[in-house]
């Protein structure tokens, strides 16, 4: 009996702690969401109220009519999807080649790729600035997509390489005997079998491109090409900031991500742990 009580007490403590931690981690979201439902008079009153006294959707209407939030979302999609396509086009063949062949330079290639991941874009930004201007890519989506693809490539190559290795060669050989081309083998047999890795790759790359400010800040000065982070950043005023509008844009900007999380959480977790935890 005593043991049972102790277990019960422990459970209460664990859940209590979890809920407290969740409260801390969710607090900024609560602030963000609740602020957007406050009317202008309430949001700019001190001290801040925890619960909106007269909830209103006014901020959402205002954002819709007075900012480019829809355009920023659209740009975010273009940038994210473009990065996903470019990265996968490069990563799949490379990862497949490394998984299926043993050649001089493979180890060097894979390690070099790992080192690229260490080279954060911000310490390269001066050199990248030079490359982007020489390529004449300023103010094009490619100015953001190209560097984003480069910095997501390492993760994708390693992720897919690990999974491709697990597909039995015999499966591919028998398909080849049946007359399938190598491309068919890849698209009809290998890729479907490695779907979890592909989904993890796509979500990671999508998120990376959606979330980063640096490249857009540096290479896109045309406000018609701003993505969500850049749009939010542009609403920070030197003297005056319309917090109500800015927070509302922020909420709208993360909704697609929340949907992504709800459906693909397990793949995201698989991707995050792939590099750091070795089984």
């Amino acid at each position, binding site marked *: 009996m005593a043991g049972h009580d102790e277990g019960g007490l422990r459970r209460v403590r664990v859940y209590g702690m979890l809920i407290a*931690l969740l409260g801390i981690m969710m607090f*900024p979201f609560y*602030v963000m969401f609740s602020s957007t439902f406050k009317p202008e008079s309430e949001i700019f009153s*001190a*001290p801040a109220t925890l619960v909106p006294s007269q909830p209103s959707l006014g901020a959402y209407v205002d954002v819709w009519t007075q900012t480019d939030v829809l355009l920023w979302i659209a740009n975010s999609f273009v940038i994210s999807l473009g990065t996903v396509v470019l990265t996968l086009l490069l990563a799949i063949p490379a990862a497949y080649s490394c998984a299926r*062949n043993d050649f001089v330079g493979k180890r060097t290639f894979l390690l070099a790729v790992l080192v690229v991941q260490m*080279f954060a874009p911000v310490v390269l930004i*001066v050199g990248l600035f030079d490359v982007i201007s020489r390529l004449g890519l300023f103010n094009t989506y490619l100015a953001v997509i190209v560097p984003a693809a*480069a910095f997501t490539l390492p993760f994708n190559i390693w992720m897919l390489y690990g999974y491709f290795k697990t597909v039995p060669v015999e499966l591919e050989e028998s398909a080849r005997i049946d007359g399938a081309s190598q491309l068919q083998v890849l698209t009809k047999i290998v890729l479907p079998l490695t779907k979890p890795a592909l989904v993890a790759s796509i979500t990671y790359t999508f998120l990376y491109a959606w979330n980063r400010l640096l490249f857009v800040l540096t290479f896109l000065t045309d406000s018609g090409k701003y993505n969500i982070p850049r749009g939010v950043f542009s609403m920070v005023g030197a003297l005056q900031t319309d917090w109500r509008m800015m*927070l509302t844009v922020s909420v709208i900007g993360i909704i697609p991500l929340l949907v992504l999380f709800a459906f693909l959480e397990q793949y995201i977790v698989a991707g995050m742990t792939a590099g750091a935890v070795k089984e």
Partner: protein
Amino acid sequence: MSLAEERTRTGDDSRLAQSAAHIKRNRRAYLLIAPAAVFLVAVVGYPILETFRLSLYRSPADSTIETFVGLQHYVDIFNSDIFYRLLWQTGRWVAVGVAGKTLLGLLIAVHLKGDIRGRKFFRTAFLIPWGIPYAISAVVFRWIEHPQFGYLNAILLKLGVIEQGIGILGSPDIAWLGVVVADIWIGTPFMAIIFLAGLQSIPQDLYEAAAIDGAERWHQFRYITLPQLKSVILMATLLSTIWTFVSFDVIWTMTGGGPISTTATLVIHIYQVGLQNGNLGLGAAYSVIGFLLLLLFAVVYLRVYTRGGEEL
């Protein structure tokens, strides 16, 4: 014939032929990695070289005229007070940030480990701060810390901790703490998820044996969990150190490096000097110093990652 044999074959003239034969036999393999390799060389490799080259020149962004100045930028940097201040500010930013992320992540992971109802829900919820734009997290924290209308001041006032609202981000003494809190919030989920995965791979019978021996929970944590988790903690803190070191979006959005440069780190300074002030040469020199520090981390990381000469 194995690769090793192929490579250890001696004879200078036959080596070339050997290599040619090897490349020919693996032509398809090389062709498949070529696009990725060329792309990385062009978009990452070339800018690295370009940064080294630029660091030897005076090169204003608004002009095409470059003047060779040799190591002058480096001399200037090492003789300037700002550099040592940046190192100190970067050091405290990384140390406090990584410590906060590690401890909070560990705390979350340990409580999520057991037989928790709704673990998937908790895990997803804890993950979200990591997966949203840093700029958005930054503005939300700016809003929380707002001197007049912020929630933090409202709470502190209510608790009677302070008598009147404080402007955290405007104060040179504590602004960096106001920013590091946001960075910890963003970086904690990664740690929690990694630690959770690590905890779940610890054999359960270790705990059962310890329970039979009557070990206290703290002792179980101290003598089973921590040692078993050592390599995961090492890997995760190393990665987190790198990411915290290069963290840009959060600082840039919250303070832009101010007030009076007290929240600037090395990478913020790179951006200010190289791109904001358009002094590409000096910015490149700072970048090279950043490279070298990153390289140091990378070498340690690769050592840990490939420890034991495991097959890739």
